[in-house]
Structure formats: C-alpha cells, structure tokens
C-alpha cells in the first residue's frame, strides 16, 4: 500500500522562496537550495518548486536552480513555472527534476500533455490546476491561469478528467480561495476531483493545523498533501506531521 505523501512546496521568486496569501503579499522564506536540502534530510516525501515569476516566459534560471537542488536533494522533486514545450520539459528532467508541472501552457495547448506523456512517460507529467470557486456556478470551480491572475471558463473537474485522458500522471490541485489562509484545504474541491479521476491528486492550499492534513486525505481523498506556510515558518516539522497522521491510522513513510 502506498503511503500518503507530505510535500513541502517552495514558491520561488528571484531565487528566493516566498509565500503569500491568496497568491499575494509574498513573504521571504529562505534559500531554495538550502531549504530543499533540509526537507530532503528531515523526511519530506517529495518537494515541489514553482517558479512563480516565470508564468509568461520559461527562464533559464529555473534550470540552474534545478541543477543545484538535484545535487543536494535525494527525494523526488517536481518543478513548474512557465514551461511551454517538450524541449523545456526534457531539459528540466535532464537537470535532475523527477517531474514537471504544467499549468497555463496545458490550458492553451492541451496536446502538450499528450506529447510529454508519450515521450517521458505519464509519471513525469503533473497537471497543475489553480482552482477558484465560481460565482456564476455555485458548487463548481473555475480554472485560473497565469499564476492565478486570469480566470477562464473551464470547469476544474472537467479539465482534470481531460488532463488525465491526455496523459497527465498526477494533478496538483491548488485552491486559490484557501491558499495561505491556514484555514484548511478545500475538501469539497478535492473530493470532486479525486472522485472524477484515477490518477493521484495532491491537495494544495490552506494547511494550518495537523488535522487539516488528515481531513484532506480522508474527506478530500487526496493521495498527497502539499503545504508551505506551516512548514517554512516552523510551525510543524515533517516528522510531527507524519507522526500525527500515523497515530490516526494513515500509512506514512516514517
């Protein structure tokens, strides 16, 4: 049986880890390579690095960052931010990333998912979805692109299903409504997506206390939980999270 995964997320802007609330008001959280190595040493199951400055254009600095991280991190890590072509995906995988996440580019060109899956295997291809509760359609969520700045008419659940069909091997599902609030994951959103797809879903956005992690797994059906604020700023260690989950009967790698 697979363990449930604890995944710290490092949002990187201008080579620093930052963390905001609802994608805004960014606060400095340290050096990405140092922070990554620390998480690798202290039992994180995976890491996610998102270059949040790069949504419009792929930047070479992301490749340099991946190379440095890979020398110090011996757990899988995903990298995302501004990736638009299979060549860029190839470069990042060759630089040491285990998986690459695509967001805006997949919305604009869904075939990118299929091309990447055929060339690298679908386990490398993470579809990142930034989801916002729809005001027009209650009980639905809309896909937002360009670092959450641009809402689209695309329904999140439909997009997740389509992404799986095209070749995504995993979905990184961020609730923009919950992001950075520490008020808990949006488990209605998580449940709607995990019920609709057969690939693993990483719940993201809103972790504040240990119980939130449990709820995302049990109520939301998530295979992995992603967090930033509560671990970067020292509220909880990875070990504390895993011990808590294990004490409540969740299988973890501890």
């Amino acid at each position: 049986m697979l363990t449930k995964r604890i995944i710290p997320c490092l949002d990187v802007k201008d080579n620093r880890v930052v963390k905001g609330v609802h994608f805004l008001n960014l606060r400095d959280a340290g050096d990405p390579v140092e922070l990554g190595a620390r998480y690798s040493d202290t039992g994180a199951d995976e890491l996610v690095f998102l270059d949040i400055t790069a949504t419009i254009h792929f930047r070479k600095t992301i490749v340099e960052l991946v190379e440095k991280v890979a020398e110090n991190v011996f757990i899988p890590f995903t990298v995302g931010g501004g990736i638009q072509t299979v060549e860029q995906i190839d470069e990042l995988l060759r630089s040491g990333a285990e998986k690459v996440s695509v967001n805006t580019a997949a919305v604009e060109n869904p075939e990118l998912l299929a091309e990447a899956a055929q060339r690298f295997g679908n386990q490398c291809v993470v579809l990142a979805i930034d989801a916002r509760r729809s005001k027009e359609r209650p009980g639905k969520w809309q896909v937002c692109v360009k670092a959450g700045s641009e809402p689209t008419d695309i329904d999140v659940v439909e997009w997740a299903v389509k992404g799986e069909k095209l070749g995504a091997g995993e979905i990184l599902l961020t609730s923009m409504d919950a992001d950075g609030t520490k008020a808990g994951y949006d488990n209605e959103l998580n449940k709607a997506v995990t019920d609709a797809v057969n690939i693993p879903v990483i719940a993201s956005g809103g972790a504040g206390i240990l119980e939130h992690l449990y709820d995302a797994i049990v109520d939301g059906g998530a295979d992995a939980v992603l967090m930033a604020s509560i671990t970067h700023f020292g509220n909880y260690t990875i070990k504390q999270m895993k011990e808590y989950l294990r004490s409540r009967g969740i299988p973890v790698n501890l």
Partner: protein
Amino acid sequence: MIVVIDYKVGNVKSVCNAFRYIGCKVKLSCEPETVENASGIVLPGVAAFGYAVSALGSLAELIKEVALGGKPLLGICVGYQMLFETSSEYGRHDGLGLVSGSVVPIPPGRVVPHMGWNLVELPEDMELFAGLGSEKHFYFAHSFYAEVADSGARVAFTDYGFDLPAAVQKANIYGTQFHPEKSGNTGLKVLENFYEICKGEALKC
C-alpha cells in the same frame, strides 16, 4: 568507476549526483570504450519504454555483451524494465532480454501510475539490500511493471493490491523498479551496496 549510460533521455543526472554523494566515481557516458572499461554500469531511465530503447540504439548490444560477460549492471525504473524481453507500453517493443519476463500495464482497479513510497519486503539473499533489514519504503513512479518469468532470478516484492515485483537480481544483473536515487537515505544505501558489488568485481579481474 561506475558508468551511467547517457542515452539522452530523462533524468540521468540524479543518479550521478547520488553516486557522487556517496563518494563513488561516476561518469555519464555513451561511448563504447568507456562502457567497456567501467567497473559497473547503471542504466537509468525516466521515459517511455519505446523511446528509451530507440534512444539506446546500438549501445544495447554492447551493454548486453558486457553484462553477459559478468560486469555488474544496475537498471533503474525504465532501465530496469529494459532488462526484460518485451514491453507493451505505447506499442510492442523489445528489451535487452537479459531477464525473462515482459513489461505490462499495472492491472486496473488501483491508482495508476503507482507513484509514491511503498514498502518493499527485502529478501535476505539479495546483495542490493544488505544491511537494510527486512522491509523498507522506496519511491516508485511507473505505470507498467515487469512480470518476472525467470526461474534464475531473485525478486523482491511490494504490495500494490497484488505482489508487484520491485527489484530483481540475476547473477551480476540487478534492477529496481523504484528509484534508489530518489528514496532518501534508504536508497543511497542500495547504491552503496551496488558500488561495493562493483568494487568486489573489479578486484576479481
């Protein structure tokens, strides 16, 4: 020196980084002479099977030859799958055929890809797992798996609703479906064990 086969695809750097981290000299190469002179060979692979096989091209024959000649060979993930005879990932493809068996999709009824940390039961007689106890978590990321049909091979299993082969050993030929280079300290120990095996072989020559 251990040579990691550079077949210009997927994540090969992580494997090199992990060997360097444990103090092993390692070279990323696709030159036949370097492969022939290596104390051990690692066949990594993050790619679809067919793409990986065609990227390997004429090196495939050489790798087969030196492996059959006794040089330690470690296949990782798709590199491990390539040790077998055939695969049905995106069409039918031939592998190296060093271990009998075929690579097939993970059966329906569970989440695919099998991605994450799973507990592997470690047989005592597999040198790759020396010093690791009876079971450990390793990191997996794959949608296909090898059905091992080789009576001469030892196999370690993990539970994914069925007994999924997680690692194989046949004489000097080793393979792991999981990623030791991404399995934290436990995985680094597996690479150390392979390094020790290579050192032992080098002394025999």
